[in-house]
């Protein structure tokens, strides 16, 4: 269907449209018009992706000079693939409607592991191995050696690509990962490098967050992307954590030991080279004197995305003399390493800021701030000069050098915490140095500054106003959309009491309470008897889950539950979990019914959808607060309070509720789907908690569904499930939650649509 969105002709590849999609496109268009950033919340399963794509593609076609590129960031490979498929549908529709051949180039980019077609390399199992092996076949000096010594193996796909690939642009079209591989095989070109090269002139790029947010990768992949791009972060409810993770460094004793080996290798190599090829080192020295002028020029002319690990000062200055020669630098690294080792040899917790750390290091081992700041850059240069093939081996020392640069660059926003042991095992010494980023805006700042429009979108972003605050940007649009429904297919219930009227809550004081555990057990037992097929239950943590399940076992509750459904448990081990998940789905499929016990913030709660019968009910046992005793968290809360005026409690509740919403949102993946959402904690009934749930869930919580007892819950659920089992056809939706073009154009409907979006 062809839509007119405030004067923009949008091709929409389906015959019907949801009203909220229309509304979403309106808001998105306004964001693009204003060349600003936006925060948009729309429930999952309402066609967010296709609305985004349709509108932005239409915008690109209408104003090719205003918006040149769409960068679509998603979380996982399956999600990336899904986006590409939607895009393909859209493009086919374009071709059909306009009759002309499309000159759009869209492609997905993923790691080497997913794109490699080299027979030996691609058979490796781990991403790191693939990267390392690839590097050892494609590094420039390896290839140089190959020229003189043909027996030196190189990757023929890369060679081929390097020889001709850059001159001939990839033909326009839509490429997912498999298409790229096929194309690569056909031409004999390396798909990974082809994709990396092609994103520069592609119209649409679909890849993972890390390619933009992680400074180490962003520098390689994304720095040349055009300024007039639109960046979309999908499923972005956790974006602050991704930012923080990408900037934080954890150093353990093991890391340091491996660093030591690295340093030794470096030293030996330098020694050897010095004997054979001293000119090379001298050449490097000369280059370093010249400074990083080139990089500076590039940044000034605005070709590159700035790299937060490479601060401006570094670019303007030459590398200081003390670390300019290779030996001096290795000596410097050794001293630094020894210092870190000494710091880890402690018996009590230390928390300090970056300036404190710098002062201490200066006093102890006389390392100045300035050389530290150049550490990362200097190491990279050294590794290049020494022609070290397997970069993967040098990851510990690279990590340390990043740490050195970051700690000396940022005096604010980071904290250093050294813990002699883990909280769970206070007797086992396992010292860790956390260099923790507390300010997510540091990592994402270059993105906001560089690109014209950045859109953050997800199914659960409530409360909307907190994201601009913690990410430190100024959005032009903030909107939350509800789900228009022909039937109320979600049923949020807040269970506060057991049948014995004992309040249910996972709060710390009542956590071990026998009555609470028993009531939680009864709730699950009762639900297992009346909910068909799959139930997913979320606990607040692994420890809590273990305690409760053990206690249920003793009370015989598990045995009773197993008469109704099989029980599967998520564990921290990924392989075990995916096995459990597979069996869970099988049990749902053949009618036996199953319960999956899992953990909020775990793998299951984030990436896995439980459509239709795989999740007829989600039970959230307790409020999934993050472990508040952690020092890193405490430091971050303090920082948030001081810098952004966000109260600790507000942030904790916000964080807990977004995870709770993520968990229960797993059950509803579309308008034909239905599911119960059971919040088993009396604290959910409070306005401050409830008010932080996404609007599309909040709407359906009536006063009648607050603070229920277990048997009230059972009655309501039974009624709901019977209602939902009645036949539901597409005709029932038409005109209400599904519109044809004519219906969309009616005045009345436009009036209704304008109410869907709620501006924050």
């Amino acid at each position, binding site marked *: 269907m062809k839509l007119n969105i405030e004067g923009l002709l949008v091709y929409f590849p389906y015959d019907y449209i949801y009203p909220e999609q229309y509304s979403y496109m309106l808001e998105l268009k306004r964001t693009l018009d204003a060349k600003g950033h936006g925060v948009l919340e729309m429930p999952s399963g309402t066609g967010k992706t296709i609305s985004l794509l349709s509108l932005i593609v239409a915008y690109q076609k209408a104003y090719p000079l205003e918006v040149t590129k769409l960068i679509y960031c998603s979380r996982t490979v399956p999600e990336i693939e899904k986006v590409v498929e939607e895009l393909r549908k859209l493009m086919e529709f374009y071709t059909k409607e306009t009759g002309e051949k499309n000159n759009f180039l869209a492609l997905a980019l993923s790691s080497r592991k997913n794109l490699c077609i080299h027979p030996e390399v691609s058979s490796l199992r781990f991403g790191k191995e693939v990267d390392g092996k690839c590097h050892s076949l494609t590094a420039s000096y390896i290839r140089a050696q190959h020229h003189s010594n043909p027996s030196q193996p190189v990757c023929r796909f890369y060679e081929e690509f390097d020889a001709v690939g850059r001159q001939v642009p990839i033909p326009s079209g839509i490429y997912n990962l498999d298409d790229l591989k096929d194309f690569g095989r056909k031409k004999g070109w390396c798909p990974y490098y082809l994709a990396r090269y092609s994103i520069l002139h592609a119209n649409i790029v679909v890849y993972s967050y890390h390619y933009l947010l992680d400074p180490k990768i962003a520098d390689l992949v994304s720095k040349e992307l055009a300024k007039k791009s639109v960046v979309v972060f999908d499923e972005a409810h956790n974006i602050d954590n991704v930012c923080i993770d990408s900037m934080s460094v954890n150093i353990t004793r093991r890391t340091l030991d491996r660093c030591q080996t690295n340093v030794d290798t470096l030293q030996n190599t330098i020694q050897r080279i010095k004997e054979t090829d001293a000119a090379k080192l001298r050449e490097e020295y000369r280059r370093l004197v010249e400074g990083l002028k080139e990089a500076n020029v590039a940044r000034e002319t605005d070709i590159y995305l700035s790299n937060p690990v490479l601060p401006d000062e570094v670019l303007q200055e030459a590398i200081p003399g003390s670390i300019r020669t290779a030996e001096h630098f290795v000596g410097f690294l050794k001293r630094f390493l020894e210092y870190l080792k000494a710091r880890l040899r402690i018996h009590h917790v230390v928390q300090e800021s970056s300036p404190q750390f710098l002062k201490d290091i200066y006093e102890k081992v006389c390392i100045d701030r300035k050389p530290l700041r150049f550490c990362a850059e200097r190491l990279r240069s050294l590794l290049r000069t020494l022609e070290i093939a397997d970069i993967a081996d040098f990851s510990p020392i690279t990590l340390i050098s990043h740490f050195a640069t970051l700690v000396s660059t940022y005096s604010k926003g980071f904290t250093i915490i050294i813990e002699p042991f883990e909280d769970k095992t206070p007797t086992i010494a396992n010292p860790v140095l956390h260099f923790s980023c507390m300010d997510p805006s540091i990592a994402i700042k270059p993105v906001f500054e560089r690109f014209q429009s950045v859109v953050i979108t997800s199914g659960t972003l409530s409360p909307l106003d907190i994201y601009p605050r913690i990410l430190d940007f100024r959005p032009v649009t903030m909107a939350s959309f509800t789900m228009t429904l022909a039937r109320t297919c979600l049923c949020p219930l807040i269970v506060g009491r057991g049948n014995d009227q004992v309040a249910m809550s996972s709060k710390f004081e009542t956590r071990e309470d026998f009555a609470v555990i028993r009531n939680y057990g009864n709730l699950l037992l009762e639900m297992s008897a009346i*909910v*068909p*097929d799959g139930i997913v239950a979320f606990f607040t943590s692994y420890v809590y889950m273990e305690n409760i399940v053990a206690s249920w076992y003793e009370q015989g509750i598990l045995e009773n539950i197993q008469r*109704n459904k099989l029980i599967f448990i998520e564990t921290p081990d990924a392989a075990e979990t995916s096995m459990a998940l597979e069996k869970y789905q099988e049990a749902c499929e*053949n*009618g036996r019914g199953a319960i999956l016990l899992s953990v909020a913030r775990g793998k299951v709660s984030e990436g896995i959808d439980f459509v239709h019968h795989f999740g007829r009910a989600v039970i959230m046992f307790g409020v999934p607060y993050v472990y508040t005793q952690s020092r890193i968290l405490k430091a971050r809360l303090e920082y948030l309070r001081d810098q952004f005026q966000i109260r600790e409690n507000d942030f904790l509740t916000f964080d807990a509720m977004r995870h709770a919403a993520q968990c229960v949102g797993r059950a509803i993946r579309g308008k034909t789907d239905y599911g119960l959402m059971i919040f088993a904690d009396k604290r959910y009934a409070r306005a401050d908690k409830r008010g932080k749930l996404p609007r599309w869930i909040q709407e359906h919580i009536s006063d009648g569904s607050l603070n229920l007892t277990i048997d009230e819950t059972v009655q309501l659920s039974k009624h709901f499930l*019977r209602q939902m*089992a009645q036949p539901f056809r597409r005709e029932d939706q038409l005109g209400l939650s599904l519109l044809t073009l004519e219906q969309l154009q009616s005045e009345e409907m436009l009036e209704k649509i304008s109410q869907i979006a709620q501006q924050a």
Partner: protein
Amino acid sequence: MDEEPERAKRWEGGYERTWEVLKEDESGSLKATVEDILFQAKRKRVFESHGQVRLGMMRHLYVVIDSSRTMEDQDLKPNRLTSTLKLMEFFVEEYFDQNPIIGNVLLFEINTFFYICFDAGNPKKHVAALKKAVGSTCLGEPSLYNALNIAMQTLKHMPGHTSREILIIFSSLTTCDPANIYELIKTLKELKIRVSVIGLSAEVRVCTILTRETGGSYNVILDESHFKELLMLHVKPPPASSSSECSLIRMGFPQHIIASVSDQDAKPSFSMSHLESVDEGPGLTLGGYYCPQCRAKYTELPVECKVCGLTLVSAPHLARSFHHLFPLDAFQESPLEEHTGDRFCQACQGELKDKSVFTCPACSSVFCTECDLFIHDTLHCCPACIHTQGAS
């Protein structure tokens, strides 16, 4: 169900939100909604008739009733089992009434494989067996696989021109199967056995697939009256699949011969159909239906002759089955105010009092709601039309 002693305490049961249905009108009175509800209740009708479709008139229907733990649930009064059996009695009667040619209802329970009845063609026996089952206790988990397997073993041997159907009353939400049920579904599909499910609690995935694959229907009840309605949907023969075989069937139309006691030649004799049943006395009678082919005697029709295998029916049976093929068109509903003419129902001659009247599209006679129901549910022909035909 009213006469049933209510075993469950009211407070143990679910909330019946009766107040939610009622709405006040402008003057604050509830009268309008109450009347509306009563009216709606009277007029639940089954209505999309298929028109000219080939229907599978000869049916073999296997009814499987879940008797697992969940049947003890008291959300149907007094509990699911009793309520279901009660409705089944009604269903069996209705079934034989509407499908008189050959109806096989075979009942048994799933988990214990305890057969209630395995006899064809005789509603009385089914009803008796159902009555007997009322008090039985329900235990354990059901197995959909086993139930389907047993039903399939029997239905497999039914001739190809008859419809093979399984109706499952499924109360549980889980099934403990000894093997992969999807294999069985495939076999059922190949054998053209249609499986329908009526769920008593919620939608179960495997049932959705089972019914979709085999072409049956899947419904979940809302309450007792909805349950009854859903059961009644299965009384009507389903459209025959185009691939099913066609064959001509030999049928006998025996006359009922009543031997007068005074007749000296008359000797009491056994009915062939009663030979095997032990519990019903000697079954010696004087008169009966005699098979035109082999002279075997039967006291009841319709039946398949035990001796020569001829299908024995009476002409009215055949005629009754026909109405499915030529369903009576739905009468046009119009508000009473718009109706001009006599204020009397053509059928019962009572005064038209309800909100709507019903007009036969063929002869434009006017009927009241109750007569409309009676005509469509029981008579299957318009009395006024017949009257005019007879007169002309």
